């Protein structure tokens, strides 16, 4: 167990290192350097001498690794740079807007689980019966539907036609409903299919016929044996689907004008506010990595084989 955690931590460090290199490396993809960008934005005709001077002052003339180390020192201290667009530090903007994204993501996540579990279980239990066909059809459409389009259709039906909910904004629970529905429903579809697959696999195992021959009821077999055995695989998938949830927040926040960090990032993209884009990427990467680490740890505690090995110590 200790060894496993050690290995996991080493790969975590490697991934975080890779994340930081990639994020920092983005700057070098700019068609012109960061100094030129700022000067152009200020509307001044770039004077080569001034540019060279500024480059020297900010350390842009140093080799990649030195620049990276300087940048990393700042990042570790919590300095991700300055957002030209918002006239504030990147960290301040992101932490101010993060709660909104967390609210949206957790509401969507809860919805996703609430939809996916019952439907996935039903579908597996009533395999190849009417309920299963309906659920499979719906989840197939759900997997294929563009989440941005689904969101727009929701806006049109619930907001424009029925006038039940505000079409955009991020104030009050009412404006949370549609973005959360969009993300929750579209993400749950994939999950329904996976839960059905995992449970079907369990249901065709030999121990099921063993339990049946011992006279256990189907309900008891499913609740006491199939569900716990499927849970592990399902939780691992939860961690993976969290990534598409985070990616989805960026699109859905933009469509619904939900004031989270995804919308801030999209504004930064259109406004060429590179520091903010970088900060967003780094934050999202870290959140995603940490969530997956958490899922891994939960997995290991849920797996009786590993748990037993631990208590034997």
């Amino acid at each position: 167990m200790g060894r496993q955690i050690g290995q996991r931590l080493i790969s975590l460090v490697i991934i975080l290192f890779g994340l930081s290199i990639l994020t920092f490396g983005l700057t070098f993809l700019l068609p012109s350097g960061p100094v030129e960008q700022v000067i152009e934005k200020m509307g001044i005709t770039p004077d080569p001498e001034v540019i060279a001077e500024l480059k020297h002052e900010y350390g842009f003339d140093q080799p990649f690794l030195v620049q990276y180390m300087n940048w990393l020192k700042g990042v570790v201290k919590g300095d991700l740079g300055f957002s030209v667009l918002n006239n504030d530090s990147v960290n301040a903007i992101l932490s101010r807007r993060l709660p909104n994204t967390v609210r949206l993501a957790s509401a969507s996540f809860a919805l996703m689980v609430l939809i996916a579990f019952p439907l996935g279980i039903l579908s597996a239990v009533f395999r190849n019966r009417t309920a299963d066909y309906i659920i499979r059809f719906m989840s197939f459409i759900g997997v294929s539907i563009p989440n941005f389009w689904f969101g727009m259709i929701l806006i049109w039906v619930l907001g424009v036609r029925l006038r039940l909910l505000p079409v955009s904004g991020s104030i009050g629970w009412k404006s949370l409903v549609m973005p959360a529905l969009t993300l929750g429903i579209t993400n749950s579809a994939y999950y329904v299919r996976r839960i059905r697959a995992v449970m079907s696999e369990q249901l065709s195992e030999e121990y099921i016929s063993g339990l049946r021959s011992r006279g256990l009821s189907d309900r008891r077999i499913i609740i006491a044996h199939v569900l716990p055995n499927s849970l592990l695989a399902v939780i691992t998938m939860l961690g993976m689907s969290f990534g598409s949830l985070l990616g989805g927040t960026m699109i859905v926040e933009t469509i619904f004008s939900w004031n989270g960090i995804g919308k801030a990032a999209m504004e930064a993209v259109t406004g060429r506010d590179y520091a903010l884009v970088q900060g967003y990427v780094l934050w999202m990467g870290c959140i995603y990595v940490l969530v997956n680490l958490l899922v891994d740890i939960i997995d290991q505690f849920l797996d009786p084989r590993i748990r037993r090995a631990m208590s034997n110590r």
Partner: protein
Amino acid sequence: MSSYRKKAWMRFSLFMFLAVLFVLFALLAGFLAPKDPLTTDYGHMLEKPGAGHLFGTDQLGRDIFSRILHGGRSSLLIAFAVTGIVAAVGIFLGTAAGYAGGILDGVIMRICDTLMAFPGIIFTVALVSFIGTGLPNLILAMSLTSWTGYARISRALVLSVKNNVYIEQARLGGASGLRVLGVYIIPNILPSLLVNISQSIGSNLLTISALSLLGLGSPPPTPEWGLMLSEGKNFIYNAPWMLIFPGMVILVCVVIFNLLGDSIQDLMNPRENIY
């Protein structure tokens, strides 16, 4: 041929036919479209779907049906291109990693891990924002970020065939590493990858549309499905058809390619039909 296989073949033929049909629509848009996709007509702005305009007109009086047909080029065909590039890069790197092992394997897989540590679309958006918007850059960014899935799967597949006797024999016969990869390994694992390729045409189409919707793809007058949606959203109150039809077409295309992938899976591996 068993009845199961017969059914699987029939399904495969049907979805293949539909897929080819949609590709033909996109290729022949110039002949099939009733109107020019770019010609504005201020006498017929925001017109409802009807006899003159099958899917209605947009805010500039352009025919939405014609725009959707032409949009197939910058949406569906680009999805094909991206899938081709991504699959080629991913399969090559993955098989190389699996076959060579050692340091090369370690480096490629760590790069994979790192890229996969960014949630899907986010790193692509960041890349596009740094290298600049527009279709070529969009394709480049998507290719740089999404080869990882292929690399992982093909690496696993290589590891499973690598120790077969025929590989050993080829090597004893003096075939070089690249030749063993290209002639013996890749053709062997390619069929297993077809399912992924077909399904990622659908998901790449979704990503391209999403990025165009966010304004990172082709610039405005271009008929592109995602872009049409973002324009349509501004007219949601008086012209909902502007966002219903382009989205519907995206959905139908994704459904077709996902079903095609499923049917290939059924054909090749009937036992795994648990979905």
